[in-house]
């Protein structure tokens, strides 16, 4: 499979595919972070996670249309406004869902799976009724278009760089919130020992609601970032849900570092193989490898040592 390429060409191919892999990695991380909080910390399987992403993407789409038609001067910066709106829209919906549905289903993870799948079907149909079945895309501001030429053969698209920068920023914020803030400490206390956390005066119901909201909000931001690299349709969310779950499970459900590491491994493997094999074969091989490793190591790559 390497015949016909010179060494320099191979180098460029790997660099380009590696970079494509990095963009995929950013997308995976953004999708998986929210899920890692909800699934890893709370033990809830949210099959509607993809739909929360799509909600963020549609908010971005609406925002881009609104700003370009009413205040074009703000257009270069619309993206940041859209992201904040997407976070609050998805987060608010997430809290509503937690209040109306999830809180009755704690300790029944398989049932949360079915119920949130139902939610995802309803949301899909809502999207289809409101925005139509066609995929929509946003217009990027000028400064996000084009690419940077690193060498003669290696080019790096700017929107990809932007998504990556965004991923790093969001990851750092999540880390700070979960592991450095008092609130995050409360969240982890509740998840590890609910009764004890309640006994020391933490309002566990409130913590649950805000944690779920935070996870969904991050999904919204992910969807918003997603509009820069692809278009959005009512069923786009479903395409990614299995991948995202595998990323989270593969990394070890309770470890954020694990989520990042597994997103990196999976995206790089897939993107490198994609160049030499067909896209579907690469995908099958990646998924199979992940599944086989999971059978050997059911707890995932990084296991958090917790006394049960």
């Amino acid at each position, binding site marked *: 499979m390497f015949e016909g390429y010179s060494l320099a060409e191979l180098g460029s191919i790997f660099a380009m595919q590696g970079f494509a892999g990095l963009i995929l990695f950013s997308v995976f991380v953004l999708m998986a972070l929210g899920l890692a909080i909800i699934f890893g910390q709370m033990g809830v399987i949210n099959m509607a996670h993809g739909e929360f992403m799509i909600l963020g993407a549609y908010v971005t789409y609406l925002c881009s249309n609104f700003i370009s038609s009413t205040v074009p001067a703000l257009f270069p910066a619309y993206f940041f406004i859209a992201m904040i709106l997407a976070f609050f829209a998805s987060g608010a919906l997430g809290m509503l869902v937690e209040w109306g549905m999830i809180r009755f289903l704690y300790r029944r993870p398989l049932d949360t799976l079915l119920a949130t799948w139902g939610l995802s079907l309803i949301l899909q149909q809502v999207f289809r009724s409101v925005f139509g079945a066609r995929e929509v895309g946003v217009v990027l501001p000028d400064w996000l278009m084009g690419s940077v030429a690193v060498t003669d053969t290696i080019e790096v698209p700017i929107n990809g760089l932007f998504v990556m920068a965004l991923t790093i920023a969001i990851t750092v914020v999540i880390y700070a919130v979960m592991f450095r803030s008092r609130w995050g400490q409360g969240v982890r206390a509740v998840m590890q020992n609910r009764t004890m956390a309640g006994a020391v005066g933490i309002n566990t119901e409130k913590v649950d609601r805000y944690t779920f909201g935070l996870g969904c909000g991050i999904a919204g931001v992910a969807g918003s970032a997603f509009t820069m690299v692809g278009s959005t349709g009512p069923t786009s969310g479903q395409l990614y849900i299995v991948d995202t779950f595998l990323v989270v499970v593969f990394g070890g459900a309770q470890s954020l570092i694990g989520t990042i590491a597994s997103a990196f491994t999976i995206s790089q493997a897939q993107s490198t193989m994609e160049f030499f094999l067909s896209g579907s074969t690469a995908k099958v091989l990646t998924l199979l490898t992940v599944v086989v490793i*999971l059978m050997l190591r059911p707890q995932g790559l990084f296991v958090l040592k917790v006394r049960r």
Partner: protein
Amino acid sequence: MTRNPQNGLLGRIDGGVAGILLLAALLVIVLPLGLDIFRLNMVGKYLTYAFVALGLVLCWGSAGILSLGQGIFFGIGGYCMAMFLKLEASSPEATKIQSTPGIPDFMDWNQLTALPWFWEPFHSLTFSIVAVVAVPALLAFIVGLAMFKRRVGGVYFAIITQAFAAILTILIVGQQGYTGGINGITDLRTLKGWDIRTDEAKLVLYFVNAALLIGCILLCLYVRRSKLGRILVALRDKEDRVRFSGYDVANFKIFVFCFAAALSAVGGAMFTLQVGFMSPSFVGIVPSIEMVIYCAVGGRLSLLGAVYGTLLVNWAKTMLSESFPELWLFAMGALFIGVVMVFPNGLAGLYQQYIAPRLRRPTVGRTTIPATAAPIIPPHTAAD
């Protein structure tokens, strides 16, 4: 659950012999008399999903293993049957306009010049019928062995089976020359020279399907009432305790997973025969989860409930998508949420809770079990 299954929760909810006779009468007498051949064929198609739902009752309801990949086995069963029928439909005379006569048309379109090796044995009907059951069971055995021996269970098992469904769909769609790709295997005509597209053939196949289904219900009932069935329930409720009692828990789980896989595959094969094609759209994640809802609506603990649930959901789906296509997803979503939050034991659970006590009132002096004795939510869901 230490109660004797004859009058315990399982015994009551199964419906027993009277319930099976009632279902048999409905399937074999009432429906064929009341429906035209088009609708009857449609019911036949629904009934093939009921095989999957039966498997899920054993696998999920009894043993607490939720597989989100039953579409895999349904699909493999269906494909095994479709391969045989396709080879029969592509005899050299029938396909002489192709550049390579004697191979299925989609292979010809994809520039294949010879039949792939794994298609060869499907010239034989006996082999195909054995393959319908054996291939999915073998696959389930391998997956089950790898997972249950490593004590992968609950949520992780569900997610991994889902990944398998994704993998298989991508494979089938990607390998167009070998599998027919996204269109699947279409244009199936005869079974050993017997045209399966005529109305009489459809009627015969419907009855064969119904008889098979009743047979499978009896088989499932036998499994559940045997000692094995009781061990399954025990390991669902307290897996560790069963393990400490000296049972190899993994073997029981592997068995029930393989059994469910084989049942689903029989359904898949009957689907191919009655509908006349097989495609990857019955294999993937979405159909697999829909199959879980058939079982959940009917009642995850009730074999008969699963059959009624399948019929009801599919009938509602057909009616709704004929007249209000946009409502269907809302209804389906509401079903998922409702069944989990409001009636976790499905229609059978509602029947047990509200209707059966009234029917039983005249014999109150005998042994009636208070409704509260039955846990409404199976405790296994909390065990993971």
